[in-house]
């Protein structure tokens, strides 16, 4: 192990290290449908294949389920968040995902889910599916498009809010000696983070088992396996892991604000420290690039105060 320990809490060592995260562009959308089930189907479809900007174009996830009283049309809804490197790279992802996954979903509607002075022209694409039959309706300061589809009309708000102060790549590395217990503990940490507004954990079930480092021995690969945290390479590489470690799981956090990412990391860390030791969790660390690449640093010791 090369990273020094900061403190041991409930038998779990917390490394003296930090998560290194990056400035991102982010947006929020509210998807509604006739039932909670179909709102969730639209949300899950739209946010699918949205784990990492490196290979997916955007990082996407479900922020939370919305009660009918919280949605513009009074129907059940889900708020989804999307993150990209820049507004220019985020916009086509929003248009394509809305066009292919929300417009197509029975009974769906799509609204802005982030109040901001900066906007993304969310409807500039999906609305043209109307082939000239689409009409707009301005109500107050908001403009909606009505696109005729086979089950009635798809309603989409003209634009959605944009923030360029979003953060992507907050993370926790959870390390243990029992793979099933480690997964249970990490799942509980993801659930704790999900209660924090304005954040998503975009990987499958919120968890990454394939943490990466920058670069590769192979030309053209921008990222490759984080060999220092691979337990099966312990004897063949400069490893971060001790002899008893069997597995490492990572939670990556994207948020609309840096404060939201920090709050989610704190919630996740508290969850792990509260219940993890009995399930074989031995240590919590975080991933960084030496502090030279990302603008945002989240020190684990700050999460404990």
């Amino acid at each position, binding site marked *: 192990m090369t990273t020094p320990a900061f403190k041991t809490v409930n038998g779990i060592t917390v490394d003296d290290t930090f998560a290194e995260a990056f400035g991102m562009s982010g947006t929020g959308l509210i998807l509604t449908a006739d039932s909670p089930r179909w709102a969730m189907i639209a949300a899950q479809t739209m946010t699918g294949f949205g784990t990492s900007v490196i290979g997916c174009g955007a990082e996407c996830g479900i922020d939370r389920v919305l009660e009918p009283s919280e949605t513009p*049309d009074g*129907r059940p809804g889900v708020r989804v968040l999307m993150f990209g490197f820049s507004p220019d790279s985020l916009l086509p992802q929003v248009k394509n995902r809305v066009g292919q996954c929300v417009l197509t979903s029975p009974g769906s509607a799509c609204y802005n889910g982030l109040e901001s002075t900066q906007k993304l022209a969310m409807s500039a694409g999906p609305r043209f599916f109307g082939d000239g039959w689409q*009409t*707009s*309706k301005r*109500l107050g300061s908001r403009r909606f498009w*009505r696109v005729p589809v086979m089950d*009635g*009309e798809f309603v989409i708000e003209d634009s959605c809010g944009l923030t360029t102060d979003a953060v992507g790549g907050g993370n926790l590395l959870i390390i243990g000696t029992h793979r099933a217990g480690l997964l249970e503990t990490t799942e509980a940490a993801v659930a704790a983070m999900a209660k924090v507004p304005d954040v998503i954990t975009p990987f499958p079930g919120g968890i990454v088992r394939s943490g990466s480092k920058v670069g590769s021995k192979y030309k053209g690969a921008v990222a490759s396996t984080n060999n220092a945290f691979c337990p099966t390479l312990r004897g063949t590489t400069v490893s971060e892991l001790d002899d008893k470690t069997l597995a490492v799981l990572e939670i990556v956090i994207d948020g609309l604000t840096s404060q939201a990412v920090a709050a989610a990391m704190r919630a996740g860390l508290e969850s792990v420290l509260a219940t993890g030791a009995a399930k074989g969790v031995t240590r919590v660390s975080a991933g960084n690039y030496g502090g030279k690449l990302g603008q945002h640093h989240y020190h684990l010791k700050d999460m404990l105060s």
Partner: protein
Amino acid sequence: MSVVRLRLLSAPAARLDLSGLTADALAGLSEPGISNLSLGSGGAKIGDVFAVSGSGSGDGVTLVLEGVTPACDGIGAGQRSGTLIVDGDAGAYAGRHMRGGRLDIRGSAGSWLAAGMSGGVVSVAGPAGDYTGAHLSGEKFGMSGGTVVIGGDAGERTGDRMRRGTIVVKGRAGAAAGSRMAGGTIWAENGFGAGPGPLMRRGTLIGPRAERLLSTFSDCGRHDLVILRLITAHAVATLGTLAPAPLPGLVRRYAGDMATIGKGEILLTA
């Protein structure tokens, strides 16, 4: 917030143009300052016509006009902010070219109410005359934003050449409502008079019934439209207790006017 009360000294013998006498125009003025403001283009001062009490100090001015009659035209015309309360009946052109704030008329309103209005809220407790939210000669469009709610009936050609915004009529909208309409919403709780929407290009007319539909509107059948939920929610958010009853799920949709591009619609709720 400050309150300025202007009581008409005597009922006007001729038309009295009050355009420009708005809540925001009195902001920062003392009582004498308000009295010395010019009224209309005839050279009269406010103090010559009204008894003035109060000043426009503080944030947000509420102007109360008392004793006005239907001979008083242009009340609230051009208002940008603040609240103007009319304790009586307003004449023609009330709220014309209004951009913001609120105009509450506790009686009736004459013709061309909110003509060319672009923002704010106009409420009329009683009926309104013809051409609410319409345009005046030489203007390309009528109302382009804001919300109007009329407690009684509205006259003919409500929303003529209207482009955006919402007009709610708690009573019945007269003949040819939405004529030449380019957008926006007219919601008449007691329905429409004869021939709504002549030469309408875009926009939405909502009501339980129409006296007679033009033959250039095409029946598209009954539908459950999500946009109705948004229109209802917008009315509640804008008008509060003045909002009409929520729209039903199913409406019968007539597309038209097919004599133009046919992108408008009449939605019958009954």
